[in-house]
């Protein structure tokens, strides 16, 4: 099973490669949603070169939903990524799939809709489109992941196994609108240290507003030390550590723990202990692995 994560700087590439990364995800301001860090398009060729020198895959987030007037720019970007040798491109908008088909590069695509992929039939649908892989929804149980892996080509499935989980994306500027409603001029656009708590609870959810709207994240950090062995057993292709709201050093540390688990240098309990020693106060849980969501009210 490949280990993937997000690089915060170009210099992180070598550090993360040493820590066990098989692939690194990068974002750009124009084409990516919720990237841990964004890079200029002009930096991407150098990033590919540095990744390949370190023997890690360079994976790009092109996971926005695009407006009509942006389509030609998206196509140019896809062509550019193909030309510079990007190894994978994550997408959510089927326009990317259509444009990549025209450019004969669907083999580079990985479908990541965040919430929509919850069963093996839909996994099979996207894989028959000739794409490289799919990312499963985060809100499914370990049993469901196992069932999907056993019914589909598990080697082409990826899980977001560690990190804050995205819960909601609105196109609206919800924070700026709230300040406008209060007649205050606090500038909350782009702030990455804001949280919200439901009025009757004490669970902080990261929230931020950017050019593409407002994003809300889980109260907890999802972790998968206990489940990692099961993922490998059912041949899951890749597990991602999403570094959003983490530092580069934290990401390298977390990655190294999973890498040691993968190499069987430590067991899951030891991995937990190592992790807890670095993040003693962090709320980290198994997310939805053992907690099924219901269909009724």
């Amino acid at each position, binding site marked *: 099973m490949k280990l993937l994560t997000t690089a915060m700087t170009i210099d992180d590439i070598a550090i993360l490669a040493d820590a066990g990364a098989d692939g690194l995800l990068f974002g750009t301001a124009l084409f990516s949603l919720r990237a841990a860090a964004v890079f200029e398009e002009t930096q991407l060729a150098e990033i590919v070169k540095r990744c390949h020198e370190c023997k890690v895959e360079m994976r790009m987030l092109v996971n926005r939903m695009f*407006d009509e007037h942006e389509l030609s720019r998206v196509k140019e970007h896809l062509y550019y990524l193909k030309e510079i040798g990007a190894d994978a491109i994550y997408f959510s908008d089927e326009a990317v799939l259509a444009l990549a088909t025209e450019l004969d590069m669907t083999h580079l695509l990985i479908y990541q809709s965040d919430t929509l992929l919850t069963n093996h*039939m839909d996994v099979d649908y996207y894989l028959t489109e000739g794409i490289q892989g799919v990312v499963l929804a985060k809100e*499914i149980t370990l049993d469901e992941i196992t069932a999907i892996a056993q019914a589909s080509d598990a080697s082409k499935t990826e899980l977001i196994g560690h990190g804050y989980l995205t819960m*909601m*994306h609105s*196109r609206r500027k919800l924070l700026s609108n*709230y300040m406008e409603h209060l007649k205050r001029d606090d500038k*909350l656009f782009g702030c990455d240290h804001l949280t919200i708590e439901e009025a009757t609870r004490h669970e902080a959810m990261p929230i931020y507003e950017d050019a593409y709207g407002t994003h*809300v994240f889980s109260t907890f950090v999802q972790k998968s030390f206990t489940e990692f062995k099961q993922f490998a057993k059912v041949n899951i292709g890749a597990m991602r550590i999403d570094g959003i709201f983490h530092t580069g050093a934290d990401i390298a540390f977390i990655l190294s723990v999973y890498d040691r688990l993968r190499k069987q240098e430590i067991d899951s309990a030891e991995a937990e202990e190592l992790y807890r020693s670095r993040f003693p106060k962090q709320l980290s849980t198994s997310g939805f692995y053992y907690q099924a969501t219901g269909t009724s009210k």
Partner: protein
Amino acid sequence: MNQIELLAPAGDLTRLKTAIRYGADAVYIGGKQFSLRSRASNFSLADIKEGAAFAKQYGVKVHVTVNMLPHEEDLNGLSEYLTALQECGVHAIICASPAIMMCAKQVAPRLEVHVSTQHSLTNSAAVNYWKCKGADRAVLARELTLSQLKEVKQHSELPLEVFIHGGMCISYSGRCMLSNHMTLRDANRGGCAQSCRWKYRLYDNGKPIHDETTLFSMSSKDLMGARFLPELMQMGIASVKIEGRMKSTYYIATLVHTYRMLIDELLENGSVSDEKMDWYCAQLAKAENRPFATGFYRGLPKAQDHLYGINGAGISGEYIADVIDYDPEQKMAVLKVRNKFDPGTEAEVFAPHEPLRQFVITEIYDEEDLRLETANQPMRIVKIPSELPMSKHAMIRKVIDKKIQIE
């Protein structure tokens, strides 16, 4: 002006029949399986069959939402269900799962497949992708402005459907897991707890920056898109959809009756005056919605387009009775009481394909012709004298001078 389909919601057979009688061109409903809106008292296959047969008499089409994003446990019986829908006389299914779309094309090829708004389609390349996969219509994302809609329409090869009226998800549809995280209810399987409409405290690095008297919320005002209907018709949008499978019979009747009149006037005259559009919007406001805004039609919603501190629809109690019968010789209407009214109440009656007419309720009698001081028991049958002839299936509301909340 181009024809446009008026697509109305219905949570049960009564509401389906109401929507059809009041002038919907098509009705969308949810089945017991594979559908969202679990509280929308979804239809059994027998109900769907009856609904489709009723609709056929009026030349109306029935669309069934098969828009759940199924988990492994939900997949059993899909082929049989889709085949049964086709046999019931359903015209189209609305789906988000491509596996369901492809299954329908295979086992129930007479069903049209409409791509749900949960795919958040915002451009023609995505729309045309689904055309290549056999889809028959695309429901566009609610996040598009009128000018963006025009651009998408120009390059799309599928008929397009847009939302014209009703509740708005704060999130891109299908991309919201607030309910899953906060209540373990799966929003993409019909369990949405509307956690977005709750109140939240806001912190910057742990320091409170909210106002305790007006907490942060992610609650949108409802959409009223009537003013954009002329442009939507001009650009060739195929269908306008009213949101609200969980809404009341009165809500559906009021909206469908008004949008039907508006569409018919636009088809006949090519335009409506500003004054007349104000009147239509005032009629729509009688349907007991939340406060209104224009969604994304005019651009990104601003502070005034959101709700802070209030949540639900304002129930005014202005819907007071259904007309059961009218005796033209006795000039006596038989009513079923819905909300309290008294002698002296100024009222208006509206019926399928008939204009609004105002009158005053002078007297009220029970079924034994005993005079009543008030009609205050919902569902009770009463009689009122009326010079104004009234049609079966008409509804009566109080005349309330409500200032409309939308420009």
